[in-house]
């Protein structure tokens, strides 16, 4: 019975994700695209919950649906002119893009259909969040600290870029 429920949840979430992702890449108004992007990210968080990844689902909602989308909306508001209606035009390459993308999807689909999955057959532990901490702070402590430095450097660099320091050091 649980199989049926998770299957229905998977189908609904997939439809939500793919539909809103298609709207993201096809809508003419860039702000509407970013709002549909939030819907797609929340659907992906649901997929993570379906896969017993509670912490990643929470991080997905907080970081992607919250921070990243708001940051992109701020970026749009800072660089766009007044009319938003046609702020997201299509360039000439979309005729090339469609067959390339379709071919890529067909190749991945064929390889997926041919693959032999070796399932582990073990149950997922009931505590899925607590087990992340020892891995993150013992085995992966150096990548963890490097990620912290990366975030600091990237966001400081973003501030410097936006403030636009002149070549003679004049910041005004």
């Amino acid at each position, binding site marked *: 019975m649980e199989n049926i429920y998770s299957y229905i949840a998977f189908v609904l979430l997939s439809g939500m994700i793919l539909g809103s992702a298609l709207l993201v890449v096809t809508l003419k108004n860039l702000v509407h695209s970013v709002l549909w992007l939030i819907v797609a990210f929340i659907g992906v968080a649901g997929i*993570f919950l379906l896969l017993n990844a509670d912490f990643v689902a929470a991080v997905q909602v907080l970081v992607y649906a919250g921070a990243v989308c708001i940051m992109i909306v701020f970026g749009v508001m800072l660089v766009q002119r007044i009319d938003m209606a046609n702020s997201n035009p299509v360039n000439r390459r979309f005729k090339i893009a469609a067959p390339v*993308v379709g071919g*890529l999807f067909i190749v991945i689909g064929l390889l997926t259909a041919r693959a032999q999955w070796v399932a582990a057959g073990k149950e997922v532990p009931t505590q899925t969040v607590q087990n992340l901490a020892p891995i993150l702070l013992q085995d992966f402590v150096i990548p963890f600290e490097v990620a912290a430095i990366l975030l600091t450097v990237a966001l400081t660099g973003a501030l410097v870029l936006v403030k636009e320091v002149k070549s003679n050091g004049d910041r005004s």
Partner: protein
Amino acid sequence: MATGLNPSYFVALSAALFCIGLYGAISRKNAIAVLVSIELMLTAVNINLVAFNKFLTPEAFIGQIFAIFVITVAAAEVGLGLAIVIAIYRNRKSVDLDDFDWMKW
């Protein structure tokens, strides 16, 4: 298998999401729309990592750790990308990627 779903479903979902993101990244003119499409592609990769974590090594959690690092790098990437776009817009008054060709020889 506990859920009746096998990895193929999730690989197909993430392949479809990746292809939609790739289409957006190739076919849009606006630089911010290309950043948004790249976010979609990174999310598709995360679905793959978490699905393989559940179905292949459910007790190791390595896939979830990788997904968290990917989310971290994606957040840094979109911040830096938006800063570059804003800096270019200030000089050029344009966010059209077809106009960004002044590094061509």
